[in-house]
């Protein structure tokens, strides 16, 4: 092997005045960055460090610091350090660059260019601590007339659900944490395309099961052991390409749940091979509804791509009760870096356009709109609801609540936080009781904040926030962007 040109990404600093040689960093780093010998001598293998902070967080004396490795290239606006390092990596491996989590590139975030409104004098703001403040949301087809039977709806007490994350991509303890949190908060978690493990079947009432191109774990029992079914066409992190759960992550538990052999690659094809057009989707939706006796709403999840409005309209007309749109910031356990960083459009634009398109066509009541991909906080939730979404999916935010530090190496399966792994020892690191509590805390915190923001607007039901674009003003946006978002600029 020849010399690698890659220098470490991170530098690990140890404050000798603080280090007590307790060895926690050594035993907690699966990447074997830290070493301690019998003489009490410590050293580090920095090239192994992915910057996940497990060691620094658990270090009882805060003796560790993780910084970017201080080796600068000659400044070059065009050839960034990352672009050079990526070339070194490819020159050494000859392979596609893999990565995890969501698109980190500095594309414009419209969330950060939208401001919320509040009441002053002409109407009173409402204090959520003194007055009721309703976040109850029903997802599904609301179009049935009062004399007809109502279509099945999902009831949410907070318009925030947990995104699809399969057992295999994440540990079972992640699913248990989210399932418990979903039940507690009266919302939903999503199995992703990885089947339904026996130990989470008890959460059927708050589970959305996914049917994707690999059809892993799909059976009538699976479909019926859920509150709703989601057909996944694509996801924001990697529109247009399929999934690949590497064999190393296909543990016996994963294998059984997915109904595939253990330690074999689990490949989800890029398209569904029975859906080559919109009418095929209509058939699959109908098939699933028949299989579940029309008792459960069917969702269709697509990535936000260039002609998303037309796609969404087609999906609604194909019979979907919920359309989930995943923006280009959506995360994944594994994706080719070029795909993740270059495909799709911002969720804010997608939701604004789809909501308006469905209204223009008069079919908005036929389906609810769920926004996924890149929701970071409660203000993002409020903004996307005001743009027209009925609810959001959070994935990255939920994982961060469970301890994820966005090191973006999920695909290795060696997640020091016990999240993106199926290794038994690593999975242990996420105690679902703590995980559930943290996820619940996050949702409760957001719930409070959403209520505060709504109260400020003088609104006491989330129904009145949905599509309420008057509550938004754009800042620093071009006119065409404002038009696409359907908002006026700040000050106007």
């Amino acid at each position, binding site marked *: 092997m020849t010399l690698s040109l890659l220098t470490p990404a991170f530098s690990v600093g140890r404050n000798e005045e603080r280090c007590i040689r307790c060895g926690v960093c050594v035993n907690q780093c699966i990447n074997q960055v830290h070493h301690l010998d019998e003489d009490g001598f410590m050293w580090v293998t920095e090239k192994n460090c992915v910057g996940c902070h497990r060691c620094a967080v*658990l270090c009882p004396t805060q003796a560790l610091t993780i910084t970017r490795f201080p080796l600068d290239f000659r400044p070059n606006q065009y050839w960034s350090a990352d672009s050079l390092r990526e070339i070194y990596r490819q020159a050494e491996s000859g392979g596609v660059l893999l990565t995890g989590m969501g698109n980190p590139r500095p594309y414009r975030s419209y969330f950060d260019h939208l401001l919320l409104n509040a009441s002053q004098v002409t109407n009173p703001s409402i204090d959520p601590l003194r007055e009721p403040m309703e976040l109850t949301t029903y997802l599904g087809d609301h179009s049935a007339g009062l004399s007809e039977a109502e279509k099945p709806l999902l009831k949410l007490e907070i318009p925030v659900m947990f995104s699809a994350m399969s057992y295999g991509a994440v540990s079972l303890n992640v699913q248990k944490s989210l399932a418990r949190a979903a039940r507690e908060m009266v919302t939903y978690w999503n199995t992703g395309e990885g089947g339904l493990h026996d130990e989470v079947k008890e959460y059927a009432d708050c589970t959305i099961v996914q049917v994707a191109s690999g059809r892993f774990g799909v059976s009538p029992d699976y479909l019926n052991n859920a509150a709703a079914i989601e057909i996944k066409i694509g996801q924001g992190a990697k529109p247009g390409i399929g999934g690949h759960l590497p064999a190393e992550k296909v543990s016996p538990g994963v294998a059984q749940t997915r109904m595939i052999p253990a330690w074999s690659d689990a490949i989800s094809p890029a398209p569904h091979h029975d859906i080559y057009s919109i009418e095929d989707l209509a058939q699959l939706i109908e098939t699933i509804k028949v299989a579940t006796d029309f008792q459960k709403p069917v969702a269709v999840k697509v990535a936000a791509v260039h002609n998303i409005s037309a796609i969404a309209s087609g999906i609604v007309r194909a019979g979907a009760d919920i359309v989930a749109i995943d923006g280009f910031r959506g995360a994944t356990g594994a994706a080719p870096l070029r795909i993740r960083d270059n495909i799709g459009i911002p969720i804010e634009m997608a939701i604004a356009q789809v909501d308006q398109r469905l209204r223009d066509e008069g079919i908005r009541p036929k389906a609810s709109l769920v926004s996924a991909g890149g929701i970071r906080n409660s203000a993002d939730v409020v903004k996307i609801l005001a743009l027209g979404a009925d609810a959001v999916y959070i994935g990255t935010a939920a994982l961060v609540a469970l301890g994820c530090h966005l090191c973006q190496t999920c695909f290795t399966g060696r997640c020091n936080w016990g999240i993106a792994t199926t290794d038994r020892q690593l999975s*242990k690191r996420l105690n679902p*009781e703590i995980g559930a509590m943290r996820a619940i805390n996050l949702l409760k915190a957001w719930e409070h904040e959403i209520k505060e923001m709504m109260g400020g607007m003088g609104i006491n039901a989330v129904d009145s926030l949905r599509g309420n674009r008057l509550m938004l003003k754009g800042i620093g946006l071009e006119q065409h962007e404002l038009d696409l978002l359907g908002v006026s600029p700040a000050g106007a």
Partner: protein
Amino acid sequence: MRVQSNPEYCLGCGLCRLYCAAAHDGYDGNLLKAFKRGTPQPRADLIVRNDKSWLNTCRHCHNAPCINACLTGALQKDDQGIVFIDSQRCVGCFTCVMVCPFGHIQPSRDSYRVVKCDLCRDQKGIPACVSFCPNGALSLTEEVETR
């Protein structure tokens, strides 16, 4: 009352032992002082076996064999049911070590006495090991003592 250790979620990181040691012997929770300047002594052992690990905590038994066996009366049970040791009276005979079926009681570092879990009875709040366990593998249970 006792600290219960759940191997299902024990990471074997050993923070419990560190904080336990710093919670005793007058270090007042100061890890740096304990480990840089002192001779800290954890009151319970972390047992690491193959893929499992757990803190070998005291069960604070009803009719505890260690108390029965203690030559000096150093081992006692307080009103809360905590089995603790009066170090001044301990002569380090290790009879209690010999009769503790769980192997919880261990000789002190200097071998002149024994150390054991006292549920941090001198401190405020819950035992240090429980409050600092990063993964909730330790819990303080009210469960009736082992008989």
